[in-house]
């Protein structure tokens, strides 16, 4: 397995965390991983993104010019990265923040998720990134339950010391996964 992802959205939407979450889970599953953030002042207000590679074999270039998977949380991100996605690639788009999702003229599997609405439904407006994650996991598969659980632990206990946030984020992932499996 080898997946190269670009994950992109507004500064506050948690795209960096989402990418790190994936990389961490991938590592725990014994895979090679790399994560590269965009950095610098462009992040403020503007769009932030990261590149994640998860692979069974060693990763030569961690820099991703043509992603296999694109997870986008807002419109500018979709506009910017869609043209780069590979044939037969996957795009997961947050339809709560993207009003017009363009017609695709290429062989790309597009899934749109109203991640923000779902997160708000769950009374966890900040967990829209986890909904997106769940959806990605649902489509792509390949990461173990155990790894995802450990990554949750890492993200909310080790990093921010908020174990109380785990259930709600786990729920968000679940909802995302369900949506994916339901074929959107």
């Amino acid at each position, binding site marked *: 397995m080898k997946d190269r992802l670009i994950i992109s959205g507004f500064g506050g939407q948690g795209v960096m965390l989402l990418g790190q979450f994936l990389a961490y889970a991938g590592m725990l599953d014994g895979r090679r991983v790399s994560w590269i953030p965009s950095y610098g*002042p462009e992040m*403020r*207000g*503007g769009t932030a993104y990261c590149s994640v590679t998860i692979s069974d074999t060693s990763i030569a270039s961690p820099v991703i010019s043509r992603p296999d998977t694109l997870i986008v949380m807002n419109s500018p991100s979709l506009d910017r990265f869609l043209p780069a996605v590979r044939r037969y690639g996957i795009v997961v788009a947050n339809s709560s923040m993207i009003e017009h999702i363009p017609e695709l003229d290429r062989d790309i599997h597009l899934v749109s998720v109203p991640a923000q609405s779902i997160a708000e439904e769950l009374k966890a407006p900040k967990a829209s990134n986890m909904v997106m994650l769940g959806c990605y996991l649902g489509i792509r598969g390949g990461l173990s339950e155990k790894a995802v659980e450990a990554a949750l632990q890492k993200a909310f206990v080790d990093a921010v010391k908020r174990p109380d946030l785990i259930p709600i984020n786990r729920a968000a992932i679940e909802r995302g996964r369900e949506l994916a499996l339901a074929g959107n």
Partner: protein
Amino acid sequence: MRVFERPKMLKDKVFHYCPGCTHGIVHRLVAEIIEEMEIRERTVGVCPVGCAVLAYDYLDIDMQEASHGRAPAVATGIKRVLPDRVVFTYQGDGDLAAIGMTETVHTAARGEPLTVIFINNAIYGMTNGQMAPTTLLGQRTQTTPYGRNAAKEGYPIKVCEMLATLDGPSYIARVSVGSYKSILNARKVLREAFRRQIEENAYALVEVLSTCPTNWSMKPRDAMDWIENEMQETFPVGIFKE
């Protein structure tokens, strides 16, 4: 009748500053003063390296981008070539009081006819929140994760008090933009700092206590209150030389 309007001297571009960051307020005050004094066409500004590095994107005047800390030297170069222009620098606390301290002191000692606008937000905003020379004792930053400790990291530098011991400067003042009233006062003092250069060919520096909600990890309003309640204890507002 419009009672409050965006100064024409501010370009249309949306500030890149974080929500609630008072860099924007100071930009506006500077723009208003330049407009009011009708000096736009003969003013040259110098940007720092710091969050205000892109100030030239907002102020519709000739500007130069200095290297980190060297704005006073750059401004000196400009002013010596163009003595009848109005030249100002806009600098953060890292820029002016850390790496650029030598230029700050010497430009003041020379009494170079410049207006220096010094944004003291007690932190390095641009680089994500490290200690500044003006970081308060006990304040946590990325590089003082255990709180600034006098024994290890020393004491905050009071730039106005220090520069007021020099014979060169004509006007040294500290203001705040932490409340409505403070903002009105800041405007007056900044205007005076420009007047000194224009009418008296003299050096003036205004330190502005400003917020960095992002790196202080505070809501914008709490950050403003923090200026008024905490920062001003270490950095009292006032006129130190006139």
